[in-house]
């Protein structure tokens, strides 16, 4: 790719984008920090139980968490710490934030990645079939499904899935990460976890299946109507081969767009889905941390999610540029 006519190599483009992200991250830290610290309410009150606490205790706690210093000092200290990879110490859980968030992040990522893979596969398939048999009943179904699926709130689809598969049919567990009592091992453990994942993943997938179906279908139709495909068709190349050779390449771009630019929505969606299904991931942690006024944890989650979004956007842009060299790196 280097030295292509676009004026800038892919690597230089990536490096430039990374450098550009740094002030972005700084801005995010400052905004989050100020917002959370200027909120009414005192985090110390969340830490002391429900009896009047000794004044000495309150002082000690305040000092211990550095809350006795001025806002500016705290902000600078925080930025300094973050630069050294220090996200601080959780008020609520009394462990380092990084450790806490990473432990939960794994569980959320399992949910998110499974959703992305599953939704992409289904949406792609549905979109391809809809485009191939345009205006057929299948196409009409796909279009209808995509439109409706896009309009249903994830937490409600979650409730409906629980109603159907857990309450009515009793096929699947309605919540949790795995069975509590039976200590499954090896394969059985994965199977048990997978069973717990089915409903949350389905709930979370609906919107992305809808989006992927829509975009796959419309970009395929666009490609199949394009001059070169029409030309290929007149040369007698089989329709299926045209679909695979030209159509899918065209569909790749919108799908990357969805994964990349809708990443924040998946983040929000998992917070909701984790609540509906009692999945102990970052979303739950965030919700608990709001209730507990756990500023360092909240900031840590916001920061890590933002950085994840930046990275995913960056990758999306680079892959985008790679797939479609016409895009100028600017």
């Amino acid at each position: 790719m280097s030295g292509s006519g676009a004026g800038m190599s892919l690597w230089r483009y990536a490096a430039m984008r990374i450098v550009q992200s740094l002030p972005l991250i700084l801005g995010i830290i400052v905004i989050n920090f100020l917002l959370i610290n200027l909120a009414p309410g005192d985090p110390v009150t969340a830490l002391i139980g429900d009896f009047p606490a000794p004044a000495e205790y309150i002082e000690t706690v305040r000092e211990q968490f550095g809350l006795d210093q001025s806002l500016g000092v705290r902000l600078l200290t925080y930025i300094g710490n973050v630069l050294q990879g220090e996200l601080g110490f959780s008020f609520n859980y009394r462990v380092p934030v990084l450790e806490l968030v990473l432990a939960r992040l794994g569980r959320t990522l399992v949910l998110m990645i499974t959703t992305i893979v599953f939704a992409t596969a289904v949406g792609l398939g549905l979109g391809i079939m809809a485009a191939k048999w345009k205006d057929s009943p299948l196409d009409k179904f796909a279009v209808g499904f995509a439109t409706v699926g896009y309009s249903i709130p994830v937490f409600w689809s979650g409730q409906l899935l629980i109603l159907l598969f857990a309450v009515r049919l009793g096929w699947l567990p309605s919540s949790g990460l795995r069975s509590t009592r039976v200590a499954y091992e090896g394969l059985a453990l994965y199977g048990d976890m997978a069973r717990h994942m089915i409903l949350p993943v389905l709930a979370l997938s609906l919107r992305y299946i809808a989006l992927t179906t829509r975009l796959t279908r419309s970009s395929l139709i666009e490609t199949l109507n394009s001059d070169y495909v029409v030309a290929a068709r007149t040369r007698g190349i089989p329709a299926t081969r045209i679909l695979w050779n030209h159509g899918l390449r065209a569909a790749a771009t919108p799908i990357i767009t969805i994964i990349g630019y809708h990443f924040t929505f998946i983040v929000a969606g998992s917070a909701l889905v984790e609540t509906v299904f009692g999945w102990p991931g970052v979303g739950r942690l965030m919700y608990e941390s709001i209730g507990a006024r756990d500023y360092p944890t909240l900031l840590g989650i916001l920061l890590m999610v933002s950085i994840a979004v930046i990275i995913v956007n960056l990758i999306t842009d680079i892959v985008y540029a790679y797939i479609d060299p016409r895009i100028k790196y600017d």
Partner: protein
Amino acid sequence: MKHARKNMVVFALLLLLVTPAIFGGGATERPVTVRDDMVIALGSDPEHLNPAITTGYPVAAVTADVYSALVWRDNEGTPQPDLARSWDVSAGDTVFTFHLHDNVQWHDGEPFTSADVKFSMDEVLSQYHGRFERIYGRIASIETPNDSTVVITLNEPYAPFLISLTVFDAPILPKHIFEGQNVFDHAATTAPVGTGPYRFVNWDRGNQIVLERNENYFGDAANISRVIFQMIPDENARTVALQTGEVDYIWGFYLPSAGLAELRADPNVEVWQGVRIPALHFLFVNNDSEPLDNPLVRQAIMHAIDRDLIVDLAMEGLGNTAIGPMGAAFPYLYDESFDLSNLYPYDLERARALLDEAGVGEFELTIVYDSGRPAFADAVDIMRDGLSNIGVRLNLQPQERSVMIESVYMQRNYDLSMQSFTSGGDPSIGYHRIYITQAFGTPFVSATGYSNPEVDELLAEAAITVDLGRRGELYRQANAILAEDLPLFPLFEEMSVEANNRELTGLRESLDVRDKIGRARWAD
């Protein structure tokens, strides 16, 4: 670990694609129970595991059987020997001599001595424990004449002194571990070393905490070898887990009232309800805010709150409304003559008449409550409907807990505020603070602005009166005044509820059900 997680992801993905076929059926049979453990549901992780530096519920829930204290309280509330095998009380009720067991070991093998008791009280509890701090102020000295004797001298008699020495108010920490250390971030604050029937094994945050039987326990060894505290944040999921047998025991604190009907109908589940440690739900009334400064208006509003409906709908029946200003669960302080359900029944006509008499028209009141308590939200919705019938508009302001604390206790920026206070096992521990004259700015005491020297005096005397007959008389006098003045609106006395696997027995041996879970056993 990292490798395992990666494999797990890949495998989960593969499985998911073929799942419906593989996992279609046979999902709901009860798992075979391994009957040598007991799973107790918690809502979320405790902040830490050091009961000496907080009065919060979940910390004590996990550590009540890891640590011990001088005494524990039986079902009647009577103090029983724990670390102290016996005690003598001096004639004037001020000198307590505790004789300790002398074969007690900490979980790390170090011997337990009277020095641990003195250290815990002098160095930790007195500074960091909300309830013990107040007791400590009444202590003149703590002496340790030898390794197995502790002598505590009080300034003056204090009726609830002995019952304030349980693991919930005065857990004994290991001196050899905490001495000279910062208790807040010491490792033993999250991985406790105690003297109790269970020892701490590990804590997988967000998932579970595991305890195992202490084979060197100085008392009767626990029946069940492992106790697992399982974090289940979703309240529905907790009740479902009990029904499917994944969880054996849920305390009222974590039991959503919404799921009770279903649990009561389940033959495998035992639902227990009753009053254990009395707790009062009430509305703080800002006595300085117009028109609430008028007693007639306060009485009118009390008449327009359908307290029975609140208990039946919002609390699923778990409450008693036939109470005086300090409830009715301590029989010695209650009398029908000041029962609020007799004095202020739900009566909109009477309420309107009282408002007319007070000469106030329609007005709006702001009610502040903790947004994290769904039952409060339901109760407030019921009150709003009732009050709208007498021309009082309730403006609902649910606030995140620490914001609520700020508005109610610090700034007193509220008209009404729904609260629940525990008695702590004795009215002088938990209820005096609601009614006595208080300086503003301290959370969890009276925020009403009410000040009645007569009440203050009666309650102060009741606290140091050990004779129950005389004590009750003082309380009844105070309650009669409070029922008339109505500085706040008592709603109901909370009834605790618990649910457990029916085959689990030996529960609730102690007044606070979190204590003595070592006595639980599986039915044969």
